[in-house]
């Protein structure tokens, strides 16, 4: 079976501490994979390695059959991999809509155009549609700095999804989002992504979110994959519960 | 969103222009700049530009002092044909562009009748075309570049001093008279036009006068470098018979301070073509036996009993606590030249106040008296020629600084190229 993403023996250490230790995993198209693990288990490092922000000490990363090990983020993104961040990475001095328009122009490969306007009617319409599922449409014209923390988080995800990736990595997508909004947003997001056939990997602390939306769960502990399987199975594993939640 | 800001921008421009309009209006609507008054004016307003800030203040202030002193003296004596002189002082600092703007301000806003000024060659070269454009009599008093009148012709621009070639040629001749058996020479000059031109003329003159002379080192530290340890080592290694330097300001003092203890001045005969201006600053630290040039015959002890010279030196000293240095003399030559030209023109016009054209005509080829009691000649090319003085430093208990010994005066004709001949061509044409 063809995979979207494979890692082989992926290893990364910081000052002698192994953050990711010999991780090998294969992810099939359309899968929605949740990654769980305690703080410092290596989840974010894994995402950083896959998207090229960090260079692995050892191991390989294969995306759609192509070796992307140590390719910089820009190239990895260009191949159809997008991500969101634990701390939202957005353009704080611009408006919500402008943030999305920039993402759209980037996806179209028009970022370096210097004469045509960024804001065209077509792009604006598309941008507003994109913001819809995140409940950000009404804030479109507001400067990002006026958004609440949860809004920033959602915008961060919106920016990633605006790139129309084939593989989307979400780093704690619901942290900071109010529990009232959480499930609503995830429902719409996941259904859209599924409809587009996007493969999703998300790091998450909220076990209810993982149970509800992940088709498969990777449990990280001390840089290694402790368990890999259906959410019901993995999250019921006492070893996982101990390592991830701190209690069995 | 963005277009809106571009639109509002226009409003601002409007507001701004309105402001500019008000400011401009308040400054007074100027008439055409070339309008001329023929009736005898209430006063002759002269813009005087020299460095009042920055490193070249060492020249700027002594020249301003000279202008102040001399204009007051003239005004006490009745001005120029009864018209008092009113000076407007301006700072030369800020670069060529600033000087062009400042020149326009002086002419169009302050409405000066003429401008005397400019120590920096770049400023002279920049201002001269503007003087032509605005048809304003402009007297360059101190800048040394030979490019100005050799490369262009000007109607309204004069220079009441000789150009740089004089120092270099006089230095070469003097060196050969005190050290006839010179074999090797070296140069340490600031890496810019003045340094380059000075060295080029000196080297040419030396090679022409004594073809077997060898150049053993040509050093180009940058202007205002201040620190010359490596250059001094190089000169100590090369051991040339003669070292030429056209350094000025802090640089020349740095060279003396660092070179003297290391024996540079006792090892070689050092020629400082602009050295006269710093003798009072360096005081007793100045080594003896160094060749000093004065960029002309400007030395307060030369012809000291001439009444004109004595009056200047004593008056200047009493007022400013120092002896005049060569930029002071240059300023004297400029102010005195203007007075002489206007008086000559008035005489020619039967006592009527001259038009600008008449004044310019009078200026061409004029001869007048200046310290140290000699005749100053402005030739047809609008450039002055001067004699040159060279001497060796020597300490004298009467003065707290070194004075010149074994002084030689080179007549103007010996150290200035003939009218219409370019400096380097002139040197190359020497027979020997």
């Amino acid at each position: 079976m063809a995979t979207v993403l494979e890692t082989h023996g992926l290893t990364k250490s910081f000052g002698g501490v192994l953050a990711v230790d010999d991780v090998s995993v294969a992810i099939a198209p359309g899968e929605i994979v949740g990654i769980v693990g305690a703080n410092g288990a290596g989840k974010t490092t894994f995402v950083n390695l896959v998207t090229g922000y960090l260079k692995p000490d050892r191991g390989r990363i294969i995306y759609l059959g192509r070796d992307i090990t140590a390719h910089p983020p820009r190239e990895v993104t260009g191949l159809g991999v997008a991500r969101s961040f634990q701390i939202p990475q957005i353009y704080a001095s611009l408006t919500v809509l402008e943030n999305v328009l920039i993402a759209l122009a980037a996806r179209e490969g028009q970022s370096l155009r210097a004469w045509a306007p960024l804001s065209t009617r077509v792009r604006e319409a598309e941008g507003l549609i994109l913001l819809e599922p995140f409940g950000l449409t009404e804030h479109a014209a507001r400067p990002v700095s006026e958004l609440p923390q949860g809004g920033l988080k959602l915008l961060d995800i919106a920016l990633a999804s605006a790139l129309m990736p084939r593989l989307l990595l979400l780093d704690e997508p619901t942290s900071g989002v109010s529990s009232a909004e959480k499930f609503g947003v995830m429902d719409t997001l996941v259904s859209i992504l599924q409809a587009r056939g996007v493969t999703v990997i998300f790091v998450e602390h909220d076990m209810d979110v993982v149970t509800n939306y992940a088709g498969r769960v990777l449990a990280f502990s001390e840089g290694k994959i402790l368990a890999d399987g259906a959410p019901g199975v993995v999250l019921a594993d006492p070893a996982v519960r101990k390592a991830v939640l701190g209690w069995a | 969103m963005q277009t809106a800001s571009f639109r509002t921008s226009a409003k601002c421009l409007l507001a701004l222009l309105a402001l500019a309009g008000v400011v401009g209006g308040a400054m007074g609507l100027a008439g055409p700049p070339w309008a001329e008054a023929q009736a005898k004016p209430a006063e002759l307003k002269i813009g005087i530009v020299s460095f009042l800030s920055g490193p070249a203040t060492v020249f700027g202030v002594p020249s301003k002092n000279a202008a102040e002193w001399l204009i007051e003296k003239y005004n006490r004596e009745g001005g120029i044909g009864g018209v008092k002189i009113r000076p407007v002082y301006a700072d030369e600092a800020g670069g060529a562009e600033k000087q062009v703007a400042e020149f326009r301000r002086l002419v169009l806003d302050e409405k000066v009748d003429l401008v005397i000024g400019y120590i920096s060659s770049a400023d002279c070269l920049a201002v001269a075309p503007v003087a032509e454009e605005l048809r304003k009599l402009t007297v360059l008093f101190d800048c040394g570049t030979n490019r100005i009148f050799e490369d262009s012709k000007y109607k309204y621009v004069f220079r009441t001093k000789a150009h740089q070639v004089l120092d270099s040629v006089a230095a070469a001749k003097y060196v050969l008279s005190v050290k006839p058996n010179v074999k090797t020479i070296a140069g340490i000059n600031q890496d810019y036009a003045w340094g380059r031109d000075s060295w080029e003329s000196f080297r040419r003159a030396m090679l022409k006068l004594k073809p077997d002379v060898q150049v053993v080192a040509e050093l180009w530290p940058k202007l205002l470098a201040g620190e010359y340890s490596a250059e001094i080592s190089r000169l100590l290694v090369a051991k040339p018979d003669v070292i030429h330097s056209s350094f000025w300001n802090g640089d020349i003092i740095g060279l003396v301070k660092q070179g003297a203890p290391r024996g540079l001045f006792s090892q070689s005969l050092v020629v400082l073509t602009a050295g006269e201006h710093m003798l009072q600053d360096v005081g007793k630290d100045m080594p003896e036996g160094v060749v000093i040039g004065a960029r002309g015959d400007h030395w307060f002890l030369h012809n000291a009993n001439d009444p004109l010279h004595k009056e200047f030196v004593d008056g200047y000293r009493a007022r400013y606590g120092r002896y005049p240095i060569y930029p002071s003399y240059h300023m004297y030559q400029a102010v005195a030249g203007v007075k002489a030209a206007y008086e000559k023109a008035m005489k020619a016009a039967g006592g009527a106040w001259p038009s600008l054209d008449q004044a310019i005509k009078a200026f061409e080829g004029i001869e007048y008296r200046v310290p140290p009691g000699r005749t100053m000649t402005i030739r047809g090319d609008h450039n002055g020629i001067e004699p040159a003085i060279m001497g060796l430093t020597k300490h004298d208990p009467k003065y707290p600084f070194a004075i010149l010994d074994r002084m030689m005066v080179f007549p103007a004709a010996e150290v200035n190229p003939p009218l219409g001949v370019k400096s380097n061509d002139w040197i190359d044409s020497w027979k020997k």
Partner: protein
Amino acid sequence: MRGGKALPLVAAAVFGAAPLVLPGWVTFLLTLAVAKSVMVLAIALLLRGGLVSFGHGMFFAAGAYTVGMAMKWGGMREAVVLTFLGVLAAAAAAALLGLLIARYRGIFFAMLNMAISMVVYAVLLKLYWVTGGTDGIGIRTPTILGVMPERESLRLVMYYFTLVMTLPAFYAVHRFWTSPLGFALRAVRDNEVRVEYMGTSVARVIYAAYVLSGALGGLAGILTGFSVGHIVPDLAYWTTSGEFVFVAVLGGPASIPGPLVGSIAFEFLKSYAYKYAAFTWQMTLGVTMLAIILFMPGGLWTIYEGLARQGRQWRLSWKRTG
């Protein structure tokens, strides 16, 4: 909102009429200010991308010296051709240096520009038989589209020439700011990581902006050279660049007219400061800049915008009550 389209026209009319009512030396200062505003625009362009260049004077010098040399050694006199040539040369210089400099941000970007501009300065001094060294090069009066301006109308003609050459620069920058690249540059300032994670190369964005900014700097140098009539290596000295940075901050880098406002204000202030405050002029600049950075990050332009906003509110409340 209210007759927005008419306003640029009115502004053009006012700028067009200005020299007819202003005294000659004021027109000259205005010419200089307009010419240099393009340089300030170039600095402001980078500032909006979070980059500050303490060496942009080198492009100013590149443009000016290209014109100077083409005149001195190539015997060219046509202003339009010379301008084109100069801008091209400055852009080429920026394109070359950009390869090295676009890798850097912040301090390195600022100081590398400074250091390289000092090399340019040194070279201009050094090659004195070509460049005239510190004596500089005289820029003779050019012909404009083949016509040699008369001495009496020269200043007027140079003013209008400068104005006409400046317009496309401002328009181009306006287009730039609304374009994807312009936004990408602001995005770089906000968050480089996200820019790269959008598949856009930060280095290329900066490179493009740098080349544009270099070309603008060149244009400013050319126009200044024409109006001053003499160019010297000091144009490339880092303190010249610093002055432009000051003006950009003063006018406010975030608006299109800011540089023009700043430049005009600065040029007029400067011409008086030398006379009345020779020893405290730099200090005044420093204190002003500190005040702007700490209390008014938008520059002078914010004052206008604030007033405009207040004006609208007054009008609104007046309408409501009346």
